[in-house]
């Protein structure tokens, strides 16, 4: 069962004297073993005196990051080896940072000046460029006698908006040219409507295109002098870039570790700030994996100068919001994505990674059974793994291998019947394959029932265990319907016996709500309402069981379609350009059909399997660390 359940945790409370809180917190963050818990109690205050220190440490860390950014260095590195002590070392770290900033600051100021000049020149150039099509002297535009005329750009998408907004005055709005996402427009109105036109244009993000004050004549003449100044600014930018590279080389050895240390100090002070305290005593509360508890406790005691009071206990059965730390072995971890895409199991819930992996591979292989296609898919997946898509690549590779194994059972290689089938050929025995698919579905559904029973039993939820539609009552009803129905059809069970066998679980499901009302003493819903609702839910349950089981017919149907499609490709490959047909057909089958089969397998996992037992509303275990600090939980 160990692989089926999340890591066992202990709820831990540490009571630490203020003089030891830094060293103890350092141990905790370094261990990355404690998921913090917010605690509220009368008389407890939060992080007494640590707010300012935490803010200061964070400001310094931000400044250090900005200094790194300025010279193009990236933050990196593990947490500092030496213990982190914000109360003692922030002054010295700030002094080091100020020295580094002095070296980066001068370069930054010059680079910023040059950037602004270049921006300004580029803007001027673009304004002149926009005016080029007008081919009229610029000064003529400002001397109209009876009309107010403006020229400028606005976002193209706002052209229609501004026209729609000017519904109370006469106006002209002429788009001259569209460049990128902005349009150059000429707008005009009568002089007395000028304020209305101007405000409407401004509200549509109109940018007037004023010319440089000395611009005279046609715009193209002014462009030549601006181009010369732009060339000069670009040359200065290249020189500044060379300076930056040299500066980064000189600062790297000091600034990168300094930033890492400030980041760690910020995380540590930020964590302490959230710890509640009373008087001189701080309380650190949270969840620790049971197997790491002893070691953490020893390290905490060793780090403190005074005794640390340490209370710990396993979570109470009814405890909510216990975080979940999954403990799948390395080979199974890629398959966690199949589960976490749906949700994270709660602490008391079964972790369905292993059954999900097995059922996914079984269903995928059954639908995609072909030695050649399976191995090609596995090969492509291994390439994907090497290019950074590790978890997905590994799942695809395993799916490919499963397809190849089913290919051996079906005896097909690239759609050709080259091997003797160990089981059957899908196109030869369609009916047998479809029946086998439903049987596989029954196995998967029953696994879902079983996992639900385990979860309910562990939670001591006996009413759910017995009366839920996925509990004992539902399971009995399902088997009476399925097994009893089959026996009745075969004539081995009289109809009255089938109905009698169905009556008990059906009655349990029908009367579930009124029964629970009475057993738990909760407020009763009107009996009539409960009976009517219960009846229709029972009806829905029966239909649901049938449709859930039949849903797995697609396993066989896709296997048949796969062999049919592959066979067709092989037949056409015997004609002209056969190699091309074979190549394209195989790529389509492995790529497109492989994807569709994956979606179908996931659909069966989520809709038919997970729906029986899995809520997926767990809280992830996010330990305090120098990387994430206390606020990491809110970033999830």
């Amino acid at each position: 069962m160990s692989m089926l359940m999340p890591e066992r945790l202990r709820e831990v409370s540490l009571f630490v004297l203020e003089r030891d809180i830094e060293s103890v917190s350092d141990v905790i963050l370094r261990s990355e073993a404690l998921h913090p818990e917010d605690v509220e109690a009368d008389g407890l205050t939060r992080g007494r005196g640590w707010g300012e220190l935490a803010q200061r440490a964070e400001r310094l860390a931000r400044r250090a990051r900005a200094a790194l950014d300025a010279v193009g260095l990236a933050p990196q590195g593990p947490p500092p080896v030496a213990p982190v002590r914000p109360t003692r070392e922030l002054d010295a770290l700030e002094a080091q940072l100020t020295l580094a900033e002095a070296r980066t600051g001068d370069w930054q100021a010059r680079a910023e000046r040059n950037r602004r000049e270049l921006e300004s020149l580029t803007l001027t150039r673009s304004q002149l460029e926009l005016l080029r099509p007008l081919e009229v002297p610029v000064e003529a535009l400002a001397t109209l006698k009876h009309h107010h005329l403006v020229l400028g750009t606005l976002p193209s998408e706002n052209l229609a908006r501004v026209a729609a907004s000017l519904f109370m005055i006469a106006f002209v709005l002429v788009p001259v040219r569209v460049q990128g996402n902005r349009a150059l427009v000429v707008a005009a109105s009568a002089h007395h409507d000028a304020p209305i036109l101007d405000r409407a244009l401004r509200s549509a993000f109109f940018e007037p295109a004023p010319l440089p004050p000395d611009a005279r004549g046609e715009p193209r003449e002014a462009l030549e002098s601006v181009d010369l100044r732009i060339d000069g600014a670009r040359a200065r930018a290249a020189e500044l870039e060379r300076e930056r590279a040299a500066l980064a080389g000189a600062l790297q050895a000091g600034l990168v570790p300094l930033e890492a240390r400030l980041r760690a100090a910020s995380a540590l002070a930020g964590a302490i700030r959230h710890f509640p305290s009373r008087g001189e005593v701080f309380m650190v509360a949270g969840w620790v994996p049971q197997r790491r508890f002893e070691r953490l406790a020893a390290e905490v005691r060793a780090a403190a100068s005074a005794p640390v009071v340490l209370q710990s206990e396993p979570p109470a059965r009814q405890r909510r919001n216990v975080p979940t730390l999954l403990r799948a072995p390395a080979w199974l971890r890629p398959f966690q994505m199949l589960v976490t895409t749906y949700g994270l199991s709660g602490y008391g819930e079964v972790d369905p990674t292993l059954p999900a992996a097995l059922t996914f591979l079984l269903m995928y292989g059954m639908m995609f059974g072909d030695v050649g296609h399976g191995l090609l898919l596995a090969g492509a997946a291994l390439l994907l793994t090497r290019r950074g898509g590790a978890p997905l690549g590994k799942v695809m590779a395993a799916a490919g291998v499963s397809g190849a194994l089913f290919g051996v059972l079906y005896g097909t290689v690239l759609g050709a019947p080259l091997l003797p089938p160990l089981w059957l050929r899908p196109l030869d025995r369609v009916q047998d394959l479809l029946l086998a698919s439903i049987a596989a579905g029954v196995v998967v559904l029953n696994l879902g029932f079983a996992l639900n029973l385990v979860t309910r039993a562990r939670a001591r939820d006996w009413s759910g265990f017995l009366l839920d539609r996925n509990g004992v009552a539902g399971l009995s009803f399902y088997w009476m319907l399925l097994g009893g129905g089959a026996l009745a059809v075969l004539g081995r069970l009289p109809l009255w016996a089938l109905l009698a066998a169905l009556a008990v679980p059906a009655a349990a499901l029908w009367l579930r709500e009124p029964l629970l009302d009475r057993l738990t003493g909760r407020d009763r819903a009107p009996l009539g309402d409960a009976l009517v609702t219960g009846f229709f839910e029972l009806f829905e349950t029966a239909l649901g069981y049938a449709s859930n089981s039949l849903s797995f017919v697609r396993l066989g149907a896709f296997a048949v379609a796969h062999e049919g499609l592959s066979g067709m490709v092989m037949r056409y490959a015997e004609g002209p350009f056969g190699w091309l047909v074979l190549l394209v057909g195989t790529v389509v089958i492995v790529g497109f059909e492989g994807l569709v089969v994956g979606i179908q397998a996931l659909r069966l996992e989520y809709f038919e399997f997970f729906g029986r037992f899995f809520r997926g509303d767990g809280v992830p275990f996010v330990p305090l660390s120098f990387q994430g600090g206390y606020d990491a939980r809110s970033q999830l």
Partner: protein
Amino acid sequence: MRHAAAHAQVRAIRAGLLDREDWKALLRQPDVPSIARLLRDSAYGPELPGDAAGLERGLDTHLAAETLRLSAFEWGATRALLDAHARRFELANLKTALRARFYALPEEVRESAMVPLPRTRLRWRALSEAPTMGAFARLLEGTPYAGPVNTVLEQKGEASAFAFEVALDLAYFQALVRRIHRLGGRDGRRARELLGSWIAVENLSWAFRYRSLSGLTPEETVNYTLHYAFGAGLEAVRRIVLGATVADEARRLGFTVDPDAPEDEALAGLERAAAEARAEQAARLFYGAPFDLGAPLALLTLREVEARDLVTLIEGRAAGLEDAALQARMLGPFAGSGA
């Protein structure tokens, strides 16, 4: 079949909606901390903070997380719509960061207004403390917010928070409207039914507020509102700037509000009537066909209404309101819809 996986999620999540028993228990609680304790054992639990102060933000966190959880099971245009719908909380946070930057709001004030969000790339603290709007815009690079912020920045410079807020609101809702229009068939119909009236009422609210509070010209009001808004677009805004009342516009959307009520109250009445209508429609669609977008959107609508009722309960308890007054303010009928 494309909504089957999302529908499976809906089925799983719907069990977490508060039922009549939960609501009765919540209404029995005498104060906010005891309400918080009860809610921690509900579906909202994982997102609720340890203290009662951040309770309302925790509810929004849950809504955002749930929307994203459902969107993960959709693809194409429906996924894009749900992702955009989830971004409304990110937009609200961004506007808070904007105000924090412009008005130098203290850290505790801005943090008390920020909703902790799952899967956001935005760095709220850095945004709130950005020294210039240029730095603010650079922090938004690669997000849908960069475009509108840069547009205002280029044209108006530092300007005011209002200009940036309007640009962000417009860009967000225009994108949402486009995404809804892109959906065809039943998906499109469901999205128009459940999101359309919300967008329409938002647009009317902007138009009335700009008309009465901000002293904007009619042209500016038209430019600062949506032109396509499901029955409350350009023509409605033009009528409003020319003097239409809330009651007039509400009637056109099929709602009734008191024509003699002050404009603020009438707008609140319109918002409430629209929310009630959406919730009723959601309750109808919830058990409908599993293979369209209706069930996921209906669940999100019901959850939103539930969260709104919880906020009413929390604020009402904090203000010492009696049960009767509280229930009158809640959209009660669906307290039991999860049962």
